[in-house]
């Protein structure tokens, strides 16, 4: 009868943090990196806390040390120059929402911001936190993936710049080493097009995605010169739909074209059944989401090829 495993509900207490841990509030990045270097695997980094604190209350994570980054100045910014857009890791979703740079230059990310959580969550949650939490459903991931974003990670040993496509390794697992902090998201403007969009389907309006998709396209004479497609909640990590992208590059920018190749998505995604939706539904609806995101992206380019 050992097959029936006990449910750990007595360990959960969402009113308090039902575990013991040491708490740190470094006031500089160097101090934080020093701490991380010393404490290693047993430490967790706290930003907005909208994922981490929940996991601690649920006892899914029991870090011995908690390092709050929010006292570190100068990690909350959105800047744009001729080459790139750089976003500080502690930038909250509300900051993203209020940014004209995000709204005008990164429309897919802006769509994701508008679709994410409640006002309370947006006020607390940070972009860096959303990426490092590495949920397959992270709303920021598909837009950043289609913009070929890179993340800057820093440790006492130095700086690494990792393409986001190589950052997500599994649910909650990233390329981040235990002594590193993600400090910045960098988007090369050459990889950005206003012809980009994000769409998501969820059970109710304020919810995690059952599935999500972002599309970015560049056109030349009505031909798809560049296509980037990424999906969320349909694989162990947010994923790029490379098979479909490859098939679409060089094709006419017409919805009917897109439709023909949508089945290629099945090669790129590995959905599962969970409490939010079934694998079957995710597989089916992914195609619709890509189609809808494509339509929205095309419209943002003026709908010229419809």
């Amino acid at each position: 009868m050992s097959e029936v495993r006990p449910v750990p509900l007595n360990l959960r207490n969402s009113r308090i943090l039902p575990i013991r841990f040491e708490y740190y509030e470094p006031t500089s990045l160097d101090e934080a990196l020093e701490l991380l270097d010393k404490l290693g695997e047993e430490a967790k980094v706290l930003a907005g806390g909208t994922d981490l604190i929940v996991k601690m209350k649920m006892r899914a994570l029991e870090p011995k040390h908690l390092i709050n980054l929010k006292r570190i100045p100068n990690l909350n910014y959105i800047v744009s120059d001729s080459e790139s857009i750089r976003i500080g890791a502690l930038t909250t979703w509300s900051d993203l929402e209020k940014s004209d740079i995000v709204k005008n230059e990164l429309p897919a990310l802006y769509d994701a911001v508008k679709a994410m959580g409640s006002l309370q969550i947006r006020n607390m949650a940070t972009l860096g936190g959303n990426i490092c939490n590495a949920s397959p459903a992270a709303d920021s991931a598909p837009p950043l993936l289609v913009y070929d974003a890179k993340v800057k990670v820093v440790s006492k040993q130095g700086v690494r710049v990792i393409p986001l496509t190589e950052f997500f390794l599994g649910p909650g697992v990233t390329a981040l080493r235990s002594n590193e902090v993600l400090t910045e998201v960098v988007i090369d403007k050459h990889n950005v097009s206003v012809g980009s969009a994000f769409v998501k389907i969820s059970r109710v309006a304020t919810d995690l995605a059952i599935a999500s998709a972002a599309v970015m396209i560049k056109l030349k004479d009505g031909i798809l010169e560049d296509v980037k497609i990424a999906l969320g909640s349909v694989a162990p990590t947010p994923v790029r739909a490379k098979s479909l992208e490859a098939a679409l590059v060089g094709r006419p920018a017409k919805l009917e074209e897109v439709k023909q190749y949508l089945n290629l998505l099945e090669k790129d995604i590995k959905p599962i059944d969970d409490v939010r939706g079934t694998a079957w539904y995710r597989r089916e609806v992914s195609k619709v989401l890509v189609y809808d995101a494509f339509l929205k992206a095309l419209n943002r380019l003026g709908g010229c090829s419809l």
Partner: protein
Amino acid sequence: MTAWSFLGSKTLRKDSLAKVSGALKFTNDLEVPGMLIGRIFRSPYAFADVKRINKERAERLGAVVITPDDVPQKLYNPRLVSVHEVTFKDHQVLTKRPRFVGDPIAAVAASSEELAQRALELLEVEFENIRKPILDPFEAMSPDAPPIHERIMKGDKWVEVKNNVGAELTYSEGDVDEAFKKADVVIERFFKTGRRYHMQLEPKAVLCVPHTDGSITIYTTTQTIHNTRILVSQIFDLPESKVNVVKVPIGGSFGSSIQTNVIVPIAVALCLKARKPVKIALTREEDMYDHVGFSMHFRIKAGATKEGFLIGGEFENIIDIGAHQVQPYPLLGTSLGWFVSLYKWRNIRYVGRAVYTNKVPGCAIRGYGAPEVTWAVETIVDELAEELKIDPLEFRLRNYVGKGDIFWGQGPTVRSVIKSDGVPELLKEGSELIGWSSRGRPEDKKGRFRRGIGVGRGFHTSGAGGPISGEVIDYSGAVLKVNEDGSIDYITALQDHGGGTLDAHVKIIAEALGVPPELINVVWSDTSTTPYDVCTHASRGTYVGGAAALKAAEIVKQKIFEYAVRVLGRVVNPEALKIRYDRELKQAVIYVEGNPDLKITLKELATIAWQRNWGTIAAVVTHRATSAPPSFTVWFVEVEVDTYTGKVRPVRVVAGADIGTVINKDLAEGQLHGGFAMGWGMAVAEDTPYNPTTGELLCRGFITDYKIVTAQDMPKVEDFKVLFAETYEPTGPFGAKGLGEAASNPVAAAVANAIANAIGVRFYELPITPDKILKALKERGEWFE
């Protein structure tokens, strides 16, 4: 229409400022010196027995610990609403035989939440006979299924539980088999509803304070302070005079605290052992392991003649009650009551079974089975009408139970005759507003986004009163006293869930006495100072509680007139006097019609009575309603189905309500808006599935994965029309009826019928999620590729 002084007008709710400013104290906000915090050790297994509990380590931490050996060994039912003989008892304060993940086994109390949590984790509980959970009621009823409870108590008698059926009710009228033979159309369908969680804003809490004389005071989340007192008194053998339950503001309920919450006796046991005040406040995830609603499995067979008249209805009702009975027996009766009181079946056969499973116990959820039964019946009625090629509205009008008909919504023992009925008016006006005649046929609708219009018609009773004392207890009481300055204190045990019930009472009193609402104080009372009231449930707050308040006001009025005669010397007798609100003086004036010089304000009169030692004008009443009239609601809903994703969106809503005289129009509209949101969630989103191996809720009690709809999912306010029928209920206070549950009951039905009108598919299992819709469309060969 009568010109009222106060009824129907907009007034500031008495609790509104405290609520919006955050000043209002709910149970979990209360703190008393020396208070301990309690935590409950819950079973990690769905179906097991406790072998041994070691509490040493927890006690060494300084915690007070109770196990099943420390509490009264009594079976109880947390809900006292039925008479004793049909009250089914299987609950224990703490159990050695846990029957669902979350069943309370032990409890600790310590000086802080953190310490209590640590103590909880130091409890060592060993289990044996760990079995796989039974999560399906049909599996539970199979002969080889292990018994979840071997025997339980019914009243004072032990009864064996057979096939895990906890309670059963059968009924028949006429000859159904013969009727189906005669019928021109017979349809049989199987339905299954979701098992929803109430998601009331306030998770349950309790604070128990001991006193030196052995008495205790309880502050808790409850819809019924008196039944809480009675139950605690019964479990702990304390005289009721030693148990005082205080009414505390409640943060919504929807039936979740219709019973005495099981945390109450646990807190009492901790408090009696610790001899200190103990507070237990459930976290949200614990709250979801404390209660959910019932899920229901129906088989309905219905027959009609080609002339468009129903002639037979057969109804089988299997209720998945979970691991313990929160008195589902009356639900077996009301389910039948909703069924027979929706339409004239003429021949009826019913069997209802309340079946145990290893799930979170089900308790009443807004509508007490009516939303579920109404959804199924309104689906079948639509289908019959389609089959007979009769307009569904016309079919309903021909067959519904209305004015002059015998009505027994609350079950076979609660019968009365319908005296007010706004159904024809609401069907007509609603259908015109929504554009019923141009709703089109699903087969003609094309394209990705398809719209459909559906109707759902239903009702709820106003309480569970009746001329004869049946199996259900239903009476209320009120105390009203005129203060020395003419202002009024109103004292009632009746709880206001947040819908503004007590504001309705205030308006009724104001209307009767001409005293403005701002001069009427609603006293936060307790069981020691109020006459018995059964519970704020069954949409009875306004109709029954309001009638009690009116009864008290009428007595007070007579006494006012007797005093006024003494002052207004020339008046022959009290009958010659009248009372009204004077808009200029902003107070009540007692006067003689046609004699403008003969008058006195209530303020002056009350002061004279005080100064001259005449005594206080007051009344204590108890009130049993001899009727439980239906409040009819008619919903028209337009939806839009995205045939690519299966998502459904509400486009337009017309909510029609026949509640007699409307006492608080804006609050009544609010009930209908809220009722729609709740019904919409039931129709398209809400359920609590389980892990089949562990018996754990898949959402684990977290609202991250139990989603309810929010304002963002609702239609625009301008697309939501509310209609009130021009009716007057002669048995109600100033012609009023109830609303709370009627406001939601037919919503899921209307939504399901609208989806059918949009895409031509009927769904027999709730919730109608996007994947079900997409699957159905794909099976029909429709797919966007």
